[in-house]
């Protein structure tokens, strides 16, 4: 073991881990230096953006030259860097949304930026780790940061309540996850994902099967809590509703993508134990999650809650292709990764429009949107595009994302499952079009006519433009993006065999 450590080329290791280390170091630096710049919000903001952009650049460099090397429980392949890029994009968009929001809500503190950077570091570890220990600790770093971020508006009961609920559910889920890992360790003697994948079925010679099954189901419960699958979804709406809307944006996009990245790694290592049971678990969870998420979203008046339930439903769509994992692992993985990117862009966009409307207090009910079409045509138009994309109407990015997801199920012979997915998308039209109708066809209330001129800070507009272009352009020309993702995924899945 000692020799192995000495053999590592530390300079290469440093280069490979740079996209991970930059957010970590940046967060630490902000904590140390932030207090001296307490008055200067701008410094903290620009510094974090710079760190994120730098990390994005290096992640891209490393993506180009990735070699599938594993160094001390970290796996540096294109999949790792692909997800690192996703997290960094979500981070940059969240940072841009945060600046004016923090100012107008009186939350200016360097800790906010530091915690966001730490959370992204944890996410990258979740995807880069090829031992369950690294995945778990990355998950904890991310979760602990996000618990605090959810309660960042400490004087607001809603925010603190969201933090409390998120924390209790998260800690509860973590102990299930750990119990699952403990049993998997007992059944196989290892927690290394690559070893688990390579040995596969051979490890489960009859006797240890019970341990493995107990471990697998507990692990599924733990992960199900973390990405809010039905029946472990009850916390999501409250937490998304109570947290400051910038944090909700981050939770709905980056945190969810991190959960899926880790799940893909774990599934890759463990699915072959019980392919049939696994496929059954997946389709039941998927059907329940999308149906219940969509039905609950139908009655919501608050857009934050509506988007929370819709994010539950989207998690249901996103796990759907996993039923076909044993047949076509690479294309399933790339379809899910593609969907995560699409989901990040359109969800950030939708939340950005809400943030653009929220000065001094959050304006997130459907009523607040009424008449927006005449007052702020661009905001209304882009919101419409994001909602159509979330519904999955062509030619938006959301449509192609969903198409690739359902295509996997169809190719594996689960046509009925894809049909259920399509029916669910049709149900979702109803609640996604509610805000659109309000924006274009409902009269403004007297209050709004006199009321605030919408304030739309520059940085938020940049985010809206960026996501708007992303959703529409990639919706028209998705093939390059898909190629890129397929390359990242196939190198991992081939190399691991």
């Amino acid at each position, binding site marked *: 073991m000692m020799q192995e450590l000495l053999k590592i080329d530390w300079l290469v290791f440093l280069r490979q881990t740079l996209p991970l280390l930059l957010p970590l170091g940046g967060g630490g630096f902000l904590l140390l230096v932030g207090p001296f710049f307490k008055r200067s919000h701008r410094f903290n903001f620009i510094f974090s953006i710079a760190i994120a952009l730098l990390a994005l650049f290096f992640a891209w460099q490393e993506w180009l030259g990735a070699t599938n090397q594993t160094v001390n429980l970290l796996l540096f392949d294109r999949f790792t860097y692909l997800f690192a890029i996703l997290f960094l994009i979500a981070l940059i968009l969240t940072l841009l949304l945060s600046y004016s929001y923090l100012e107008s809500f009186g939350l200016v503190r360097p800790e906010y930026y530091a915690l966001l950077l730490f959370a992204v570091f944890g996410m990258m570890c979740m995807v880069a780790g090829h031992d369950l*220990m690294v995945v*778990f*600790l990355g998950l*904890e770093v991310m979760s*602990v940061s996000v*618990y*605090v971020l959810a*309660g960042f508006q*400490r*004087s*607001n*009961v*809603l925010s*603190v*309540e*969201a*933090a*409390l*609920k998120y*924390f*209790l559910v998260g*800690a*509860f889920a*973590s*102990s299930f996850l*750990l*119990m699952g*890992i*403990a*049993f998997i*360790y*007992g059944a196989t*003697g*290892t*927690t290394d994902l690559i070893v688990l994948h390579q040995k596969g079925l051979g490890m489960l010679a009859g006797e240890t099967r019970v341990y493995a099954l107990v471990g697998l189901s507990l692990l599924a419960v733990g992960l199900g809590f973390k990405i809010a699958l039905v029946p472990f979804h009850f916390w999501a*709406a*409250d937490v998304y*509703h*109570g947290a400051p809307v910038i944090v909700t944006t981050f939770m709905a996009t980056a945190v969810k993508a991190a959960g899926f990245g880790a799940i893909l790694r774990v599934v890759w290592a463990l699915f072959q134990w019980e392919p049939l049971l696994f496929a059954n678990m997946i389709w039941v969870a998927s059907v329940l999650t999308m149906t219940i998420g969509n039905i609950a979203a139908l009655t*919501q*008046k*608050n857009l934050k*809650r509506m988007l929370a339930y819709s994010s539950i439903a989207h998690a249901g769509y996103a796990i759907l292709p996993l039923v076909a994992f044993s047949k076509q692992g690479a294309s399933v993985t790339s379809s899910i990764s593609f969907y995560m990117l699409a989901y990040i862009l359109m969800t950030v966009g939708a939340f950005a429009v809400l943030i653009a409307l929220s000065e001094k207090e959050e304006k997130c009910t459907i009523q607040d949107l009424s008449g927006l079409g005449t007052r702020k045509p661009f905001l209304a138009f882009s919101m419409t595009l994001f909602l159509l994309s979330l519904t999955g109407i062509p030619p938006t990015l959301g449509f192609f994302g969903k198409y690739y997801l359902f295509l996997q199920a169809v190719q594996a012979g689960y046509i009925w499952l894809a049909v259920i997915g399509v029916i669910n998308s049709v149900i979702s039209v109803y609640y996604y079009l509610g805000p659109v109708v309000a924006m274009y066809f409902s009269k403004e209330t007297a209050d709004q006519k006199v009321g605030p001129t919408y304030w739309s800070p520059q940085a938020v507009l940049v985010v809206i433009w960026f996501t708007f272009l992303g959703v529409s352009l990639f919706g028209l020309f998705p093939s390059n993006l898909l190629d890129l993702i397929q390359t990242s995924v196939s190198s991992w899945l081939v190399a691991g065999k």
Partner: protein
Amino acid sequence: MMITLTHYLILAAVLFCIGVFGVVVRRNILIIFMSIELMLSAVNLVFLSFSRYLGTQDGHVWVFMVLTVAAAEAAVGLGIIVALFRNKQTIYVDEVKELKG
């Protein structure tokens, strides 16, 4: 009578389920939190018994990590509870229900 791996696993499962019971049934946040700590300790027991059974000490390293995670969660969780108490003056989850809809 020999004490076997199965004995330890059943004991750990019982303790874990008592923890789950506490989380599901109790309404006092502090006691819910303590029940989660109990669950984590039960996890440690499972790790150590498997470690003893397999004869590898990787399980011991896992226990270290679980302890650290428990400590970190305790610090943050108690901070959140204090912040909640300042806002609401309550430690009962069923009195904390501003978020509904």
